[in-house]
C-alpha cells in the first residue's frame, strides 16, 4: 500500500509547477501530482487519494472556489492550502502545517487566508 503523502498541486505557471513538484518529490514520503487546469485537477482528484491540495499562483478566485467546493464535497477532511512564493522556502512548512492540522482534526478544514473572500 502506498503510504506516501500525496500532494495535488494546482497552478497555471508551467515552470513554477515543475519547480514545486520537483521540490515536493525530493522529500522522502511525499509525492506530488501537478495539474495546470481545473479539469485535469478534478480528473486526478477523482481517480486518486490526496492528502493535501496546494492552490498555486495564477488560479483564478472563481476556479479556486469551484475546486474547493468539489474537493471538500468529495473528501471533507482534505486540507486545501494556498501556496505562496512559487516553489519557495515556504513549501515544506505549508505542507507540514496542513498535515499537522489534519492530524489534530482542526474544525477549520479549509485554509483561506482571506476571510473576507467568499469561498
Amino acid at each position, binding site marked *: 500500500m502506498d503510504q506516501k503523502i500525496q500532494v495535488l498541486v494546482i497552478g497555471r505557471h508551467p515552470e513554477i509547477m515543475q519547480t514545486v513538484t520537483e521540490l515536493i518529490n525530493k522529500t522522502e514520503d511525499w509525492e506530488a501530482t501537478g495539474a495546470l487546469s481545473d479539469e485535469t485537477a478534478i480528473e486526478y482528484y477523482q481517480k486518486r487519494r490526496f492528502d493535501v491540495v496546494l492552490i498555486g499562483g495564477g488560479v483564478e478566485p472563481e476556479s479556486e472556489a469551484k475546486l474547493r467546493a468539489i474537493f471538500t464535497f468529495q473528501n471533507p477532511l482534505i486540507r486545501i492550502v494556498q501556496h505562496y512564493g512559487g*516553489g519557495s522556502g515556504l513549501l*515544506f512548512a505549508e505542507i507540514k*502545517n496542513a498535515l499537522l492540522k489534519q492530524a489534530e482534526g482542526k474544525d477549520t478544514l479549509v485554509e483561506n487566508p482571506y476571510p473576507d473572500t467568499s469561498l
Partner: protein
Amino acid sequence: MNRKQFLRNSLLGAGALATSGVAKAVIDNNIDELKPLEILGFNHIPNTKSNIMANTVLHKAESRGHANHGWLNSHHTFSFANYYNPERMHFGVLRVLNDDTVEAGMGFGTHPHDNMEIISIPLEGDLEHKDSMGNIATIRQGDVQVMSAGTGIYHSEYNRNKDQRVKFLQIWVFPNKRNVTPRYDQITLKTADEKNKLFQILSPNSDDEGVWIHQNAWFHMGNLDAGFETEYQLKGGAGNGVYVFVLDGEVTVEGQKLDKRDGFGIWNVERFTLKADSQARVLLMEVPMNV
C-alpha cells in the same frame, strides 16, 4: 494505467511545457546555475518556545532556525525551507524574515517566485539581481529592493564580490491580493545616515516615502544613539501590529529588553515606546495581523 504511469503523465503535463525552452528564455543569465539547497533535515526546535504574552511575542536571536549551507548561512525567524516550527509560522502577514550571509562569489541561482511581496535589505556588501522582467541591478547597503512576485517571476541574486561576504535581510510579506502583475523596484535611502529618527522605507502607497508593496504595511529603520527614546504610532489602525527586529545594539521596547537580532512583536496597541540602550540599529515592520 498504473500509479507510476499516472504520476509520470501528471508531471509530464507540467514538465513537457516546462522543458520546452520557456524557462531558459525567460531569463538570460550568465551566472552558472547553482544547485538547490540541500536538505539538512527538518529543524524542529521544541525547546525554544516563543514567549507569547497577551499582545506581544519575543523571539530571541538564538532561538531562530539556522541552516548553514556553506555558501549560505541563514537564520530564520519564521519557518522556512528545512526549518519548521509550528509556533514560528508568521507574524500577521509577515511570513519570512531571513538573516542571510552569502559567501564571496556565491549566490542564489535562477529560481521562481509567485504571490509574495519580497523585500531585500543589504546590511553589508553588494548583491546583484537579475530577473525575468529584464531587470539587472546591484543593491548595496543603504538600498531597499522590492519585488511583487504576483503571477510569477524568475530571478537570481549573486554576490559578485570575490573577497567580501554579503549580509542581507530577506523579508516576505503576504500580498493583499493574489496574481498581481509582477514588478520590481529599488531605491537608495536618502536618510540612511540620519541619526535618532525612524525613517520610513516602505509603505502601501506609491507616492509615499520608500518602496511600496501590495499590503497595508509600513517599515521604518532607525540609527539610534544610546539613550535616545522615541514613540512609534501605528499607521494602519487597530488591526496592525509591529515586529521590531534589532539589527545592532540593544534596545528596550515597552519594557522588554532586546539584544542584537532579537525580534519582538507587539499588537493591540496604538503606539509604543522604543529606547536605545546602546548605539543601535532597528527595523520596525508594521503589518496587518489578520492573515
